[in-house]
């Protein structure tokens, strides 16, 4: 049984192509039905940055072709047009790729957390539709474990990767937590909206939006369930708020150091965190000199983000090692599958012989008491187990070294066992209707 991965990601395909290859819930269900129609196992991972199909099938080349056809059908593009954007990986390389993906190592921002949920969702869909079998169950469960291990054992996901997240995290270095904190938004823009949303998601309470026009401020405030005020009331608000996010297009400073100094006297030592993402800046840089005031402008925040992302990359080296060890483990398990049927057949044969010989001797053993009979059963079972123990261990070891198939064939030949890979042998997974 081979593991085959065919897919594309942001590294190979522009967004125009990726959107043609994106699966929603219903499309994915249909794809899983088609890909597993011949009894193969399948799972489809589809995010805004990647679409990948994982198949566990006896014939790797045929599985690859089937995924190519599926993606061509989905996108409406020919195989030739799609081919340069697609990559194919098999067995250990495919497992390592999924483990790296789950760990966030293949993401645009190393260590981003969303991908682990998306891998879980892909596995859930494959499980629900019955498209996942033993190989993909093991693969995806292990991938989810790798994702968790990497985030627990390394600091890859700990530092923020965006200006808004960095601003919120810095605020948490000043305040015990952001629950119930008051936020003052000066002006509005995409980054300040994201920052406010990030602060709210961490529990921030009341939002006050200040603008030259009170009507405009109130309109903006409605988005955050807050209230709007005019700029002339900003100094008054400075006495109450904990975080100020400034992003107006004003030409001068809207908040002076003198205003903040006056407000700080009324605050009785309570700190304030200023996030000034406006250019030109809205807050006088001298504010940072005041006791209890912390001011970060857009350059400061971008430096913090760059440093955080660099930190994530350093941690990625450790995460790669975890993914690699887990991929080796998966590969060893996958190879052991080659010898499992031979071992099972060998044990069945031995057990059948043991049973038959006991039955043949039943006449001679008839005079034994139930206790003596149990002792004979146990003795013969132990002899069989001890004889088969070493061959079983050796075959599993050989499987891990990729010689498993040779050993399995030899055992089948020597003991005249049935080959489950033979065309007329019964299969464990029936083709899906």
């Amino acid at each position, binding site marked *: 049984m081979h593991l085959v991965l065919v897919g594309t990601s942001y590294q190979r395909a522009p967004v125009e192509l990726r959107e043609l290859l994106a699966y929603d819930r219903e499309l994915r269900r249909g794809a899983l039905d088609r890909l597993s129609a011949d009894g193969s196992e399948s799972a489809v991972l589809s995010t805004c940055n990647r679409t990948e199909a994982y198949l566990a099938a006896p014939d790797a080349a045929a599985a690859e072709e089937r995924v190519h056809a599926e993606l061509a059908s989905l996108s409406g593009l020919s195989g030739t047009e799609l081919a340069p954007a697609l990559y194919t990986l098999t067995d250990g390389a495919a497992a390592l790729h999924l483990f790296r993906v789950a760990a966030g190592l293949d993401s645009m921002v190393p260590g981003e957390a969303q991908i682990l949920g998306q891998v879980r969702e892909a596995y859930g869909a494959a499980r629900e539709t019955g498209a996942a079998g033993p190989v993909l169950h093991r693969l995806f469960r292990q991938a989810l474990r790798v994702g968790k291990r990497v985030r627990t054992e390394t*600091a890859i996901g700990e530092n923020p990767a965006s200006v808004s997240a*960095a601003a919120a995290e810095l605020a948490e*270095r*000043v305040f*015990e937590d952001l629950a119930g904190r008051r936020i003052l938004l000066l002006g509005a823009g995409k980054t300040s909206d994201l920052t406010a949303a990030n602060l709210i998601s961490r529990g921030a309470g009341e939002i006050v939006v200040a603008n030259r026009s009170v009507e405009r401020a109130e309109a903006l405030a409605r988005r955050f369930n807050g209230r709007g005020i005019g700029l002339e009331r900003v100094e008054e608000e400075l006495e109450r708020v904990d975080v100020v996010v400034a992003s107006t297009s004003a030409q001068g400073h809207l908040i002076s150091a003198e205003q903040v100094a006056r407000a700080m006297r009324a605050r009785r*030592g309570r700190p304030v965190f200023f996030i000034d993402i406006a250019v030109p800046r809205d807050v006088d840089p001298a504010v940072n000199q005041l*006791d209890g005031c*912390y001011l970060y402008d857009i350059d400061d925040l971008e430096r*913090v983000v760059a440093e955080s992302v660099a*930190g994530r990359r350093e941690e990625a080296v450790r995460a790669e090692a975890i993914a690699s060890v887990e991929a080796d483990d998966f590969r060893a398990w996958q190879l052991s599958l080659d010898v499992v049927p031979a071992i099972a057949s060998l044990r069945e044969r031995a057990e059948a012989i043991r049973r038959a010989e006991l039955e043949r001797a039943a006449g001679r053993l008839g005079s034994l008491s139930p206790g003596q009979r149990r002792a004979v059963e146990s003795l013969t079972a132990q002899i069989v187990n001890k004889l088969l123990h070493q061959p079983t261990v050796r075959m599993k070891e050989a499987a891990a070294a990729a010689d498993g198939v040779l050993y399995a064939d030899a055992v089948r030949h020597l003991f005249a066992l049935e080959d489950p890979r033979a065309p007329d042998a019964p299969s464990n997974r029936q083709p899906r209707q």
Partner: protein
Amino acid sequence: MVGELAVVLFWPAVAGYAEAAVAYAGDTLRPGRLVRWAIWGVRLGWLAQTALLVAQAAHADGFPWGSWAGSLNLFVWMCVGAYLVWGCRAPFRLLGLAIMPLAALLLVLAWAVGGAVEPETSQFGDVFLVFHVGLALAGFAGFTIAAALALLYVWQDRRLKRRAPRVLRLRAPSLETLDSLAARTVAVALPALTLAIGIGFARLGTDGGSFDATMAVTLLAWAVYAAYLVLRVEAGWRGRRAAYLVLSGFALVVLVRLVLTPFTHF
């Protein structure tokens, strides 16, 4: 007998604290890697020191930590014990950088002057010393923890003010947490010192004796910490100013513990 046992327990305690100090320092360079080693160093060191103190108490005829060196031993145990209560939690791990080297150094100092292995037994009764010395040491241990918190506050405040790009790399408690924890620690330690001073003065009144420099500086330290709490409540003193006040109080504690007390023996 107790000497041999004490040696067996003393060095593991020092080794545990020193290992924790080194591991905490290493953890600042590579966050998350050495912190388990540090925490286990603190735990095992403290257990070894606890066993050491129990052995000393079991074999002593009287209060075994009445000398300056002996009291250092007890003081270190109290500081590390207080740190163990919450210091090992993730956001406060950096406190270990301040506490553990100090603990290892003071313990070695106590050993160097003979108070860690075979402490001198006090000439005074147990009850007075248990309360007076015990409460004073508990108060000083609290002030030491408060000073470590204040130091961490000043360091974190400076990093945030300087807008260091690596400011988020190290997990440190928020400024607000450090500030309020330092205040709460002082609020617990100050009554302990107040009681110790009260008991000391009561004894001075009944048994006689003179008012010395140790008492004067202890009173001054008490006044600084009392002023800190009053200013905090009445004038809203928080943040950097308050941290500096805690540190100045600790300078007086150091003066009492390391400069003046060696000349005092109960």
